[in-house]
């Protein structure tokens, strides 16, 4: 079993590297002069999609070997769930790729999947046993359907982002230029988090604090990054570790806040560095990649992914969720924050579809909605678990 578990980790690592290589090939495919429209068959793209599929199979291998090793579907904590989401994003990309054969989609979809998988590995990665509430077949059914739905919906974000990169006139200063750069900046922040987290983990940094919880008890918090803020009435227990004079009130989760501060700091630094070296905004840096994109097709891809993803998300995030909630928590609906945010996601994409179908919101507006939709998805995936406590806080 332990061997199976370590094989599983290796397969995940292999998948990660393969996605990275595939991204390079996809980038090559859109440069090809022969394929001005960036669709159809092309040698670079064929190699790229083949590597992507092998990577996907390898990650499926990770998934099922981990399943065998632990005895339950590996979607039981944040690491497992987010990794699975990343895998399904690649899966959704592969399907959409075979429908439309747009290579440029790979240039953006794969790096985002990579970012997501890297992000997931910042959470505890060991195999963990299931608490009683999760011991049900509905774990595999509900969680995987949600992840697949969210992944397909995320493809609309990828398409929307590509659309906007081409469509928005970056030479003019304006709201669109600003927000587009803001979206890209937030992706750099995620990179900042991954870089910081990994560096301190490799350095083996640890600092223990005793602090007072909101209920007045004493507890110990282990910081894995130097404390820019300390927990409520926190006292350092590890000699020589860095202590900031800024103390947080009891209701703030100082450890999470500390990670967020580090990510923003390092991310901003990275961003400034990029701008300093290239003398261009990130949007402007990426724009050459999308110069030959067919906007209409991109709009269609985005819309299609919402159409395909919305029913899947509804089935997993609301229907299956309600059935399981009735079995495990005695009621199908209880206004738990995660439930509310699933409803919000549902309502948002319902509004998206109505605006598009009957108000004619296509192209640019539709692309922005897809970006907002992805922000809601990410908040539901990460924000709700880390910021708002509720029944879904498993990690």
């Amino acid at each position, binding site marked *: 079993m332990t061997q199976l578990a370590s094989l599983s980790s290796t397969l995940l690592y292999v998948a990660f590297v393969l996605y990275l290589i595939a991204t390079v090939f996809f980038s090559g495919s859109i440069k090809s002069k022969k394929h001005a429209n960036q669709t159809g068959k092309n040698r670079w793209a064929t190699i790229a999609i083949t590597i992507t599929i092998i990577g996907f199979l390898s990650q499926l291998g990770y998934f099922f070997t981990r399943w065998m090793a632990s005895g339950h579907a590996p979607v039981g904590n944040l690491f497992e769930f987010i990794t699975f989401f990343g895998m399904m994003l690649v899966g959704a990309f592969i399907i959409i790729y075979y429908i439309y054969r747009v290579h440029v989609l790979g240039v953006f979809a794969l790096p985002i999947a990579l970012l997501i998988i890297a992000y997931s590995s910042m959470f505890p990665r060991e195999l963990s046993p299931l608490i009683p509430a999760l*011991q049900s077949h509905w774990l595999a059914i509900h969680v995987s359907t949600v992840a697949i739905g969210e992944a397909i919906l995320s493809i609309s974000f990828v398409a929307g982002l590509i659309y906007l990169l081409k469509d928005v006139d970056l030479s003019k200063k304006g709201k669109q230029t600003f927000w587009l750069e803001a979206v890209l900046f937030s992706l750099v922040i995620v990179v900042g988090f991954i870089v910081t987290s990994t560096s301190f983990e490799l350095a083996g940094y640890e600092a223990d604090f005793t602090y007072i919880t909101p209920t007045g008890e004493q507890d110990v918090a282990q910081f894995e990054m130097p404390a820019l803020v300390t927990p409520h009435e926190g006292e350092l227990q590890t000699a020589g570790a860095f202590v900031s004079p800024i103390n947080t009130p009891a*209701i703030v989760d100082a450890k999470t806040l500390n990670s967020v501060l580090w990510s923003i700091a390092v991310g901003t630094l990275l961003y400034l560095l990029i701008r300093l070296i290239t003398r261009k905004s990130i949007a402007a840096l990426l724009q050459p990649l999308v110069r030959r994109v067919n906007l209409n097709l991109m709009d269609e891809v985005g819309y299609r992914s919402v159409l395909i993803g919305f029913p899947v998300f509804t*089935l997993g995030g*609301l229907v299956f969720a309600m059935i399981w909630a009735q079995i495990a928590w*005695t009621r199908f609906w209880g206004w738990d924050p995660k439930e509310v945010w699933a409803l919000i996601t549902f309502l948002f994409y319902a509004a998206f579809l109505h605006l598009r179908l*009957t108000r004619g919101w296509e192209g640019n507006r539709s692309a922005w909605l897809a970006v907002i939709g992805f922000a809601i998805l990410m908040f539901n995936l990460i924000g*709700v678990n880390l910021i708002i*406590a509720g029944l879904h806080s498993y990690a």
Partner: protein
Amino acid sequence: MKELACKCGHVNPEGTELCLSCGRALTKDADSKKTSDVMRYEGMARRSQTYNASIIDKVWNFFSSVKVGVWLILITLIVSAFGTILPQVLFIPPLIPPEVYYEEHYGWFGRIYYMLGFHDLYNSWWYMLFIAAVGISIIVASIDRVVPLYKALKNQRINRHASFMKRQRLFAEKEVADPNQTIAEIKEKLKNKRYRIREEEGHLLAEKGRFARWGPYVNHTGLIIFLIGGLLRFVPGMYVDEILWIREGETMAIPGTDQEYFLESEGFTVDTYNTDEDSEVFNDTIDRVGSIVKNYQTDAILYKREEGGIAGDQRELIEEQRKAIQVNQPLKFDNFAVYQVTYKLDEIRSMSFTMDNKATEKSVGSFDIDLFQPQDVYELDENHKVELMGYYPDFEGFENGEPQSATPVPNNPAFLFNLFSPENPEGEVSFIAIQETLEPLGENDYALSFSGIETHDVSGLTVRKDLTLWILGLGGTIFMIGVIQGSYFNHRRLWLKITEDGKLMAAGHTNKNWFGLKKDIEYSIAGTDLTEITDQFEEKEKKSVALEEKEENDRDSIS
């Protein structure tokens, strides 16, 4: 009512945009609108756009608007998000009053949050109002559209006017050798793609997936059924939600069943994972986190009272089933489900005492007090007995010299005893609480001492009956069918027409997925004289892009 006569002679009801017979645009407004906007409801008159006189018309028109519907959705969405900023009143510790809790924990923000009613948002009348408004909007907007749409699609004419054809996104017009022959060739190929074909005087209409157009109305019906199911919750008898605390060995009537069903607990257990028994792959996590619970379980026996038995009489109980109630494994019977929800470990069940002579330090006897059924007197031998003068299961202190009990649950039992012995035939008074002994009426000759306690576990079970579930399930199923119908299928049409001057004209329309329709048409016309069809939308786009590029190049060459 005003009527609109078309050039072709057909008379259309007021509000019609495209003639029901030939498809010509009837008004200038309709002519100038985007094709996709006109084609959405087949250019039909809708009630909301025809009448606007009475108040009913105005209300109808308000709720029939998709713009209003989207606003209602967005408002509900934003308000719902607000409700998750701080925990709802449902999730805060039950013993602290909410008005204190929110301010104490979240300061001024908490106070405002509480004052505005966000702490119990989802049960507030105004949240219900938004949901109701969304519901009404769904009903009105659907009826307003589905009726004319149904009529239009049912009575579709095959021969459309050239102006109708020309404005479609996919369009072709070509002189071919034999238009009838070309149409026949295309027809065969369309059949391969499973199009339904109708012909009239040489003109042709090929259609596929019309049922996809009903998807939105089917899913809206499902949503309405779901919302009605949610309302039925408030009808008496439809819904039971009770908590049942049951101790090991106890048999209790199940609340909500009118004393018809009884439950006996044979015991409650909590298991945690451990590194010896469970798979070694979990060792790292267990070491890091500490103990992780594996199972909460109440071993239960369900009894049913015999027909005609007297309510509350436990002698006439018939065993129905035995079940280990676990999380995710509720006990089910007769529309009821009993769930493992919470527990209390080691509640004190009985306490043992010995009565000792202080001088000789010798025990004269011992007795057990069952905390749930204490006796008045405990006889130790012929000469010694103990009278229980007072029992305070949850002792919290004295008030005016009287011991007080906070609750009837034995969390902190205390006793007032009178000890009888040959030396003290009138008795000696002794007050005993945990770690506290008082002799209020002076020094006694005898003392009681704890010799042990017995404990048991208590299971907290939720008893639930919800007769609305099947309605919700039905609504949910219909909703899913409708969503899939509307999203995974699309309504594709191809019109072929022979114009008066003998040319072949083709036009294609779909409600979504133009990519798919184009592929179908390309397949069907390949090898025929009608070699290609133009995407007029893309043409326009290309022209504007070309223009832009030209401008850019010009700019570059100038600079």
